[in-house]
């Protein structure tokens, strides 16, 4: 049991019990952990905090719409090699020097276990996750140019986040541990705010949370405010020296919570003040 229950959250990051469980299962079984959830519920931060809590290095692979699976493994710099062949600067018969490892490759060859964050995997092409299946399963890949096989020295702890913009393929999902980060309830949210603002006045916090949850319950908001926006808002409230009474009568700094015009209009119609 000592192997298990390793990740318990950090002083800056409150992880719910199911989430802790999922993380630890993923670590114990050596499977990638796929995290989904509303934007702003701390999916990316999770990886950072796992790295911190377990005192491991974090390697982040940010996925963009143009990212190819191969980019994460290695890049073969052909143009450089062609160029060198022309001027004879380097020994071009040594292909190895033109192979640059990608983030996944880096994580594999690292001397100690690292945390690898594959951020926003759904941004990439639909086929992207399938192309990584074998690499994540076996934790090895093959470099065609040199005939070399890169094998993970220590299986990295892989955290994958997704905003569900695209559905992920079944074959990929089957290999993952999955967790959906729920929106924190009020009690948990209080804890989270306390972690970030230990000195916050209780009255202000209560009023702010009351307003915040009421705001979230308005039907028809395009983008419901999330944890990160709440934290920004509270910071603004504290910095602005807003008192509980002022907040009670008016939603101050609402711009930190609602980010588009339609939502602000919607708020006016609903008049939650």
């Amino acid at each position, binding site marked *: 049991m000592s192997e298990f229950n390793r990740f318990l959250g950090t002083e800056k990051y409150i992880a719910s019990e199911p989430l802790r469980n999922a993380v630890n299962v993923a670590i114990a079984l050596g499977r990638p952990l796929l995290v989904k959830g509303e934007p702003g519920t701390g999916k990316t931060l999770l990886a950072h905090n796992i790295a911190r809590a377990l005192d491991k290095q974090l390697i982040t692979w940010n996925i963009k719409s143009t990212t190819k699976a191969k980019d994460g493994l290695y890049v073969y710099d052909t143009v450089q090699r*062609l160029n060198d062949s022309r001027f004879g600067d380097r020994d071009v018969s040594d292909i190895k020097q033109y192979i640059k490892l990608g983030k996944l490759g880096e994580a594999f060859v690292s001397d100690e276990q690292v945390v690898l964050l594959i951020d926003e995997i759904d941004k990439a092409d639909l086929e992207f996750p399938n192309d990584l299946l074998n690499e994540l399963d076996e934790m090895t890949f093959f470099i065609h140019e040199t005939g070399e096989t890169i094998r993970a020295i220590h299986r990295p702890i892989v955290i994958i986040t997704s905003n569900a913009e695209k559905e992920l393929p079944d074959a990929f999902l089957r290999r993952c541990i999955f967790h959906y980060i729920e929106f924190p309830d009020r009690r948990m949210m209080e804890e989270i705010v306390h972690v970030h603002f230990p000195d916050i006045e209780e009255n202000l916090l209560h009023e702010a949370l009351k307003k915040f949850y009421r705001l979230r319950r308005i039907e028809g908001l395009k983008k419901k405010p999330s944890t990160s926006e709440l934290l920004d808002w509270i910071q603004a409230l504290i910095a602005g020296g807003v008192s509980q009474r002022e907040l009670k009568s008016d939603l101050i700094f609402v711009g930190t919570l609602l980010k588009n015009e339609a939502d602000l209009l919607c708020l006016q119609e609903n008049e939650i003040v």
Partner: protein
Amino acid sequence: MFIDFFYTLRRNGVPVSITEWMTLTEALSRGLADSSLDTFYYLARSILVKSESYYDHYDLAFEECFNGIENYDRIRAKLRGLSEEFPEIREELLNWLRDPINSAYLSEEELQKLPKMELGELIELFMKRLAEQMGRHDGGSKWIGTGGTSPFGNAGQNPAGIRVGGTSRNRSAIKIAHQRKYQNLRSDLTLDVRQIKVALKRLRLLSKSGPEDELDLEETIDQTCKNAGEIELVFTKGRKNVIKLLLLMDVGGSMNPYAQLCSRLFSAANSSSHFKDFKYYYFHNSIYEHLYTDMARRERFLTEDFLRRFDREYRVIIVGDAWMAPSELVNRYGAVDYDDVCETPGIIWLKRMRDHFDHIVWLNPEKRDIWDRKSIAMIREIFPMFELTLDGLDDAVKELIGRR
């Protein structure tokens, strides 16, 4: 018991595979479940369920398999937690306790005191009743919420979502599973933005276009060799989606019930960045002389201009219930809007639309069962019509991609 769980999950529609089952077995054999049902619930969920839309199915299956094992502390905690967010819980509790079926167990004195009780007391009373009822009866009419009127009944659809036992199935059951708080994440019930987006993603035709900014390696090597080693970089055009999409939406009265569905479709299409061009317009009932860019402010322009402006390459999706008095479709001056003077009947306009564009479909939020109504049938003759559901959308996309 565990094998049963596997099949119960599958029967409940959770797509569990053997691979995942083996993973769970491995986890269990390593003692990761900690011999606790709670931990097991989360452990199994994180391994077996791969989308939050199946959390609800999972809850149902779990409840079916493992009922009668948990205690009441969890409901109590849940009630307290919920009451902070939903003040109306107190009312619900009161109502439940007052219900003749339940109040039969309360003394006169207790009944009198009910309205004045603190929330905490109410919860305690509720828990006591719950425990007594569960102890005394093996089902039957005195069970909690058999009438389905209270939020705690098995038919309760309260947003707070507490379900405390069904009549015969559960005695105490697993409360976490029982609460079914993931109910609104089920994907078979509604079409959400993500799913629409995924369906729309398939609406693509790749072709080489744009600036020449990708290195063509093969060609570069060829050219370099021909150049006797002098490097010659050859660039090529990237492959881009060339689909241009027009979305025309009916926003009239009869479409109001589907407003949310339509706005989901709209936001999915609008935020899908892979179209070469995307434009949207509104109309009311049928397309007449004008199309609207903003219905509320009545900003509009001539449909003729619309046809001139967009070439036949554009893919067109029309969303509407197509349900109106036939006169609104075939009569001159048939438009219901008084300021839309339409000399040409709507049906002619619709035919012009069809003749102009190569790919055009009609999505109808109304169920297929009523598609034999006059106006719908008439419009169906003009356009390929699909239901505004995920399957319908898939088929519509196929139609839009298909060669003409």
